């Protein structure tokens, strides 16, 4: 068995020797990436598909030109797409070596042209898992156990493509899959609110963010806003990641843009499609649109604020409004929203005999 991040023993030693005190961990994004992200590292990428992905941190990783990265995640879209594009344009500047993952695409926004490009040309090592597998691997890491039992990927070809093992359960006699813990060298995570110590509160689905933070050797936390410590601990049951699992706290409003950040902004479809189209053009042989995209939005800007200043303000305002004002209500649902007692048209109420 080989370990692609820290081994369980190494991951523990790092924590044992770490200053775990409650101290101000605020820093600039560039500084955090410079200190904690090294060439050859295994990076745990938080978020899920295009929601709450650590996009700002990834842009900075691209600007700093980190190489030979292993990316560990369950399902990702934008964060990995940006890294893939940087590698596609110039692999000597920024590169992915290996993927441990379950899904790379954009759901309703389509497949990932740059993943297809990298994978089909054999430019990255692949290790396929399922969403539960990767989430459970991070969970095992967070729990301090070297592996975790799981039902999936039993019966599938995934078992031939990755490091999981089958054992006979000593209690039931049935086969069970064992997944090795994942301890990325560093985790990059974007959340809504954190205090200066790193205690943070996640709104909406947690994805696998707490587990990734606890499993990783080091954790960079970007957040929409830094809030008072007292506000965070007002309801300690709602703190999702404790301060001592965090090494850097960076306030980055719109840090998941153009993705979705629950309670702050919805997807910027227009911008995501712009990136997608540039990637698709690249896959078909025209590198110009992707070069232009990277020059304009990533390499020519110093930080996220400068990136955002290139986006029309109305577009930013629009995605905040969709998110906050809920204006795309499904009216029938809203009207009849009485849970199990909702009334619906009588005709449709009848038991449809067909198809049963």
């Amino acid at each position: 068995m080989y370990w692609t991040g820290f081994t369980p023993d190494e991951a523990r030693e790092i924590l044992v020797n770490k200053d775990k005190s409650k101290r101000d961990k605020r820093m600039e994004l560039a500084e955090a990436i410079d200190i904690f992200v090294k060439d050859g590292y295994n990076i745990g990428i938080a978020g899920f598909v295009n929601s709450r992905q650590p996009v700002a941190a990834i842009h900075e990783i691209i600007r700093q030109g980190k190489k030979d990265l292993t990316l560990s995640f369950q399902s990702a879209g934008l964060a990995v797409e940006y890294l893939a594009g940087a590698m596609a344009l110039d692999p000597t500047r920024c590169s992915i070596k290996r993927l441990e993952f379950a899904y790379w695409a954009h759901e309703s926004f389509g497949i990932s042209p740059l993943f297809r490009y990298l994978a089909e040309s054999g430019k990255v090592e692949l290790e396929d898992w399922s969403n539960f597998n990767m989430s459970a691997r991070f969970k095992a890491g967070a729990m301090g156990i070297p592996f975790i039992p799981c039902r999936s990927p039993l019966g599938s070809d995934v078992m031939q493509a990755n490091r999981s093992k089958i054992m006979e359960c000593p209690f039931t006699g049935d086969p069970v899959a064992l997944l090795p813990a994942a301890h990325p060298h560093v985790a990059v995570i974007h959340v809504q609110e954190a205090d200066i110590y790193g205690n943070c509160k996640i709104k909406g689905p947690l994805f696998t963010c707490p587990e990734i933070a606890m499993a990783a050797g080091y954790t960079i936390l970007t957040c929409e806003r830094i809030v008072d410590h007292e506000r965070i601990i007002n309801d300690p049951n709602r703190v999702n990641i404790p301060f001592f699992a965090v090494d850097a706290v960076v306030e980055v409003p719109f840090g998941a843009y153009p993705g979705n950040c629950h309670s702050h902004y919805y997807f910027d479809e227009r911008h995501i499609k712009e990136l997608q189209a540039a990637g698709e053009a690249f896959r078909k042989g025209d590198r110009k649109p992707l070069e232009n995209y990277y020059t304009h939005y990533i390499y020519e800007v110093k930080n996220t604020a400068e990136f955002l200043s290139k986006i029309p303000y109305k577009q930013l305002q629009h995605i905040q409004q969709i998110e906050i004002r809920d204006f795309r209500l499904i009216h029938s649902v809203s009207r009849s929203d009485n849970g199990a007692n909702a009334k619906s048209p009588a005709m449709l109420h009848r038991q449809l005999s067909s198809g049963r």
Partner: protein
Amino acid sequence: MEILDTYADDFSPQEMIVVAGARLLENNKVVFAGTGLPMVAITLAQLTHAPGIIPVFEAGAVGPRLTRGLPLSVGDSRTTSKAMYLQGLNSAFELAQRGFCDYGFIGGAEIDVYGNLNSTMIGDFPALYQSPKVRLPGSGGASDMAASCERTIIIMVHEKRRFKEKLSYLTSPGFLDGSPGARKRAGLVGKGPYRVITTRAVLGFDNETRRMKLLATMPGETVQSVQENTGFDLLVDDNVYQFEPPSREEIRLVRDEIDPEGYFIKKIIK
């Protein structure tokens, strides 16, 4: 009971799939929904005969009602509206693994006669795993739902190249090699695939052989046309029937209320 003007005049194969998916869902069941058409079908079911359906989304939301609009992702903000429980991926999949999820609602790029699915790669596996002919997005949560939900409902585009004798890669287990007890022997639980809903048919599985069986043809299709578009021999149910077309109201809900922007259901250009 039915009168002819109940039915919609025009509808796309995708719309037919969504309507069929919605109709298959029983009220008050827990349904673990994959992205795309399953989300549309669940919403349609909630709006029609099954307001008590409890959707589970893999990113963490349990039991939402999609009052904020159709989610564009199983992890986006819209999945959380009126949710009753909201943790993360581990929590959602653990619910399924524990036995809380009656149905998993998934798709794939390829399917075989035993309801196994491929959503990983097209090409020679394992030889060319590291540089496949076509690289697909990967399992996501589909294989997890297939492994742990009590039953699965599968949605497919019905093309010969997708209904294959042999998959390039088995991502999501169905009845595996179809032998008796194959799932249990592999360590899986749950009863396996329940229905396959396609652009041409509704299919089930034979109790004895676990091979795919044609139950109903979609409007405009015949037993023969379905078989011609399938890459393996289909069993045909003795009572095979024509599936009831979408009603006007079903189509109206899909087009006007659930997916007015056409994210998952492409508009028909008249």
